[in-house]
């Protein structure tokens, strides 16, 4: 497998306050890679910087330091044309399906925007054919979704439309940022399965989520993020089966499960209190092949 996306030393500092007088480090020195045909889940709580990383990779937000390589090329220098070409191969789907559509236009306008930029020469009939194929790939019935306003469609349909939109391009890589967290329980799993289908097509997928069971379900590898820093990463089975970092263990203990009650002793608060350090200065160490853990302070 070839490395599709590679992050190295990625850091994002926001300037806040008047004239950028204050700084807030959202992401610090993040490095990981993602192969074609692989789903990597990026798991973190709110404020962990997980969505920021997705936006950095998609160039929706400029990087403060470090590099992001896509198929070997540094994307941070892309501008205008090269950026548009990059977006031909790398796309995103976001959390809130209703925020992803401009409410004043019909939902299928997302296709038209793609056509205007990337396929200006394609004829109407051929385009309709392409759209039909893409909808087919995400199991949507064109008659039910085309020419409708976003509010007339369900969240699941809207998210599928966005995946179809990405498929219209020659994408190799998809950032899926919490794409099912706002969907209803009875339909969300099917949208998640869609990511599995895309993976089977050879796409690389970065699945960003706060939900450990979803990450566990769909991904090959898992990156655990805390306060902008990677604390543990490796194959999903290893990270979930043999979590080494206290934070990962705390998350696993706190996640409500369907058939296991929370144990009385593993109080999340006490563990969290023991995790006050911000991880600066400590290093990620490979404890076994492909399984990296940040050394805890004092350890």
């Amino acid at each position, binding site marked *: 497998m070839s490395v599709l996306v590679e992050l190295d030393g990625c850091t994002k500092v926001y300037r*806040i*306050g*008047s004239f950028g007088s*204050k700084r807030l480090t959202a992401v610090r020195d993040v490095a990981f890679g993602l192969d074609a045909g692989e789903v990597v889940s990026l798991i973190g709580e709110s404020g962990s910087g997980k969505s920021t990383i997705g936006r950095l990779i998609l160039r929706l937000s400029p990087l403060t330091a470090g590099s992001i390589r896509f198929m070997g090329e540094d994307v941070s220098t892309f501008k205008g044309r090269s950026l548009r070409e990059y977006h031909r191969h790398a796309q995103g789907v976001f959390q809130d399906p209703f925020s992803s559509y401009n409410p004043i236009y019909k939902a299928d306008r997302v296709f038209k925007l793609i056509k205007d930029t990337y396929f200006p020469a394609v004829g109407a009939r051929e385009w309709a054919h392409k759209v039909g194929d893409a909808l087919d790939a995400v199991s949507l019935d064109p008659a039910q979704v085309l020419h409708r306003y976003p509010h007339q469609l369900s969240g699941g349909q809207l998210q599928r439309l966005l995946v179809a939109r990405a498929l219209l391009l020659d994408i190799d890589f998809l950032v899926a940022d919490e794409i099912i967290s706002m969907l209803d329980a009875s339909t969300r799993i099917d949208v998640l399965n869609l990511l599995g289908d895309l993976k089977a097509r050879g796409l690389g997928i970065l699945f960003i989520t706060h939900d450990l069971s979803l990450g566990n379900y769909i991904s090959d590898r898992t990156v655990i993020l805390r306060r902008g820093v990677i604390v543990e990463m490796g194959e999903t089975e290893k990270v979930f089966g043999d979590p080494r970092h206290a934070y990962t263990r705390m998350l696993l203990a706190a996640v409500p499960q369907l058939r296991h009650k929370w144990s009385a002793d593993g109080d999340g608060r006490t563990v969290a209190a023991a995790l006050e350090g911000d991880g600066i200065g400590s290093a990620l160490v490979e404890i076994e092949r492909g399984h990296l853990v940040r050394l805890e302070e004092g350890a």
Partner: protein
Amino acid sequence: MLRYLLRKLLIYALTFVAAVTIDWGIPHLMPGNPVLTLMGRIQIQNPQVAQHVYANYMRSFNLDLPLWKQYYYFWVSLVHGDLGTSILQFPSPVSSIILHAVPYTLGLLIPATLLSWYVGNKLGALAARRKVLDNTLLPFGYLLTATPYMWLAILMSFLFAVTWQVLPVGFAYDPTAVQGWTWTFGLDLLRHWVLPFLSLFLVACGGWAIGMRNLIIYELESDYAHYLESLGAPRKLVRKYAFRNALLPQITGLALALGAVIAGALVTEIVFSYPGLGYQIYRAITNEDYFVIQGIFLFIIVGVLIANFVVDIVYMIVDPRTRIGMQEGGQA
């Protein structure tokens, strides 16, 4: 907190510099020699006065100097409180004309602004309470807030002074009255003050009432109000909270509305020949007495900036959110 105030002060300082620069720049932007143009437009019969005015102009404009020096000297005289000399009321300095007029204007402006704010907010809160009041008070509010100040002044003057003759009109007191700290004279002052005050007060009141009514309705729909209601809090408590919270933006509004009230005061004074700044500015404009216009402009700017700063401080005291947000270094 200090940072916030400093930031505000910076804005006000910038505003002041901008205003002074405009004040200085406007005559310079006019084509040709401004002094000659001005001399051409004002007709002064007395050659002695004309000569003096010419010299005065020349000195003020410092036309023989490089532009930056002209600008510099403008600031220098400003710092010394020298705003030039009036032509119409030669040789009174502009500063003394302003100082004589200011008490009258403030005497109208401050009570009208504060009372209209207080009464308007109370009325607005009342309107938000009952549908009947809402339907009767509100249309009045819209009418008042859409009324040009001077027209209400005209109307009042026509009705109360000319038609019914219950109140005097013109000047701040009866010219034949004996001035002094007497009840008679005080009453006379008051009787001359009532109509201009009322016209200012009524128009401003309408705006505040509408604003408060809308704000309260918004507050009553907010989460904390719903929470209190779902815990069975009586309406009285919910409304009390809503009123208090709605007052906060109205305080900021006070600073922003100041300019409007000042303009209202100016034109009201004109209608009633009330000898404040508005009356002076009207005389200056009809007689092309430019230094007076410029001087009053600068004076108003300074007044507005000071008032804004006071409002900022008051707001900071009453709203815990800004206070605490600032302590944490957040943006205001």
